[in-house]
Structure formats: structure tokens, C-alpha cells
């Protein structure tokens, strides 16, 4: 899968959210604690903590649809839409990726940011990437890039 470098960078290091919706069209959203991209298979795995992502996990399992939104403070932002392949317990390797991501986000203001990022994800949601959109405010907002 040929994903532009700036887009990859945002999904690896930006602020991340994952969204879904139930069959009654009620949306759900959670903070994500890192992602792992498998470019060969066109898949992204997103890490969440079930305690604060309970509805989202249920929705992902029931409707199989999910979006991942990521942005930098500079407003550069992208969104992936895709099909949920699995929701399962996070692996040791994935946890180590999440540790790196969360440490990096906590660095600027460790005490304050700890409330949100000093949490250990327990669930990995693997998604088959179907579409990617540029979400940066401006003329390209909403542009389909993949």
C-alpha cells in the first residue's frame, strides 16, 4: 500500500482518535494509544483501553466499521476508514509500540499529560484500510488520497 510519508508520520506520531457507530447509527469515539501499520497488507492496528473505550469496542465488533483520525498541532490531519478485522488482547510487541508513542506524547508536560496518556492499553483493533482522506483544514480538506 502506497501511503504518503506525511500521512504515515501523522498516524504514527500524531494525536489519535478512533471512531465507530452502532446499528442504530449512534456514533462512538475513543482516545487511541498508538497504532501499528502493516503497509504490505494495507492494515492498521489501533490500541485502546477497554475501560474507556467500551462502547467503541462493542460497536467495532457489531458493525465492523471504524475510522482513525490523527493530527499534529500544526493542523495537519488525516482520516482512515476501514473494516474491522479483529478486536483482541494487545500483544507484548504492540504494548511496547504503545509505550513509545505514549512516552513521546507525555514528554512536553509529563504531569498534566499523564492523566490521559499514562494508561496502559489492553485491546488491539485491527482494521483493513479502505480509504484515506486528507483532513487538514484548507483547500484539500476531505480530499480522497487513497
Amino acid at each position, binding site marked *: 500500500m502506497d501511503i504518503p510519508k506525511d500521512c504515515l508520520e501523522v498516524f504514527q506520531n500524531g494525536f489519535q482518535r478512533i471512531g465507530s457507530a452502532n446499528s442504530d447509527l449512534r456514533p462512538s469515539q475513543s482516545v487511541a494509544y498508538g497504532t501499528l501499520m502493516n503497509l504490505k497488507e494495507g492494515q492498521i492496528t489501533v490500541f485502546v483501553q477497554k475501560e474507556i473505550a467500551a462502547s467503541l469496542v462493542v460497536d467495532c465488533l457489531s458493525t465492523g466499521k471504524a*475510522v482513525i483520525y490523527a493530527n499534529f498541532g500544526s493542523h495537519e490531519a488525516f482520516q482512515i476508514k476501514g473494516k474491522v478485522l479483529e478486536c483482541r488482547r494487545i500483544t507484548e510487541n504492540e504494548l511496547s509500540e504503545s509505550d513509545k508513542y505514549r512516552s513521546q506524547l507525555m514528554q512536553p508536560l509529563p504531569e498534566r499529560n499523564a492523566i490521559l496518556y499514562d494508561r496502559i492499553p489492553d485491546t488491539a483493533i485491527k482494521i483493513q484500510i479502505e480509504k484515506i482522506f486528507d483532513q487538514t483544514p484548507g483547500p484539500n480538506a476531505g480530499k480522497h488520497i487513497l
Partner: protein
Amino acid sequence: MPLITEQHLPAMQGVIPSTITTCSAAGEPNTTVITQVWYVDDHHVALSHQFFNKTRRNIAENPHVVAMISSPEDFSTYSLSLVYERTETEGPLFDEMDMKLEAIASMTGMSGIFKLLGADIYKVDSIEQIV
């Protein structure tokens, strides 16, 4: 009983951008950032309508929205379940939001890109503290 209380107000100052998730009639979710979730009264908030985009199309099809807001004071984060009610394109709320949006745009290099088209008013169904 008020749903929005004093503890939620710092997260509605627009210091930390909020994220919202909508869903189309076909069941496809969409998540994006929004400059500010604006306090209207203890059961209503307003979101800035700045662009004609997927979020707007989804709201036209399905009024349910979930928004995540964070306080700049301690990063406490809340999830708000909202239902779209109406859009205001003039009046005191619109003017206040327009002025604030211009200030944010100017501070973040987004002048000319952020432009308020309307103040979308939502009823708050529930608020849950996430962290």
C-alpha cells in the same frame, strides 16, 4: 438537573481542539477535529459550522454526534452524546463564536481558512468523564 456543570467549562474554552464523530445514514462513521465546543446553557452546546463537508452531510442525515473535549487545566476528558437541533446564522451567539474563531484562526495561522458559516446547536443527551 443541569447536565453541563462548572467542572466541564474549562474543556469548552477552545484551548484544546475537540474531536467529533458523526455517522451517515448508511452507517459509515466519520471523525474530525472541531475548533470549539461552545457552552450555550446547561443542556445545550454549539459547534462551529465552518465547512460544507462530510460532517455536515452526516448531520443532515443523522442528528447523533459524539464529541470529546479536554480541559487545558488538568487534561480531564469528557465524552458528550449530542443531538443536532438547529443552526443559527446571526444573533449574539453567532457573533461571539465568530469573534472567537477569528482570534483562534489568527493565533494558529488559519486566517482566511476558518470562517464561521453557522452556530450548530445541539442538545446534550449525556456527559461521561473519560479520564
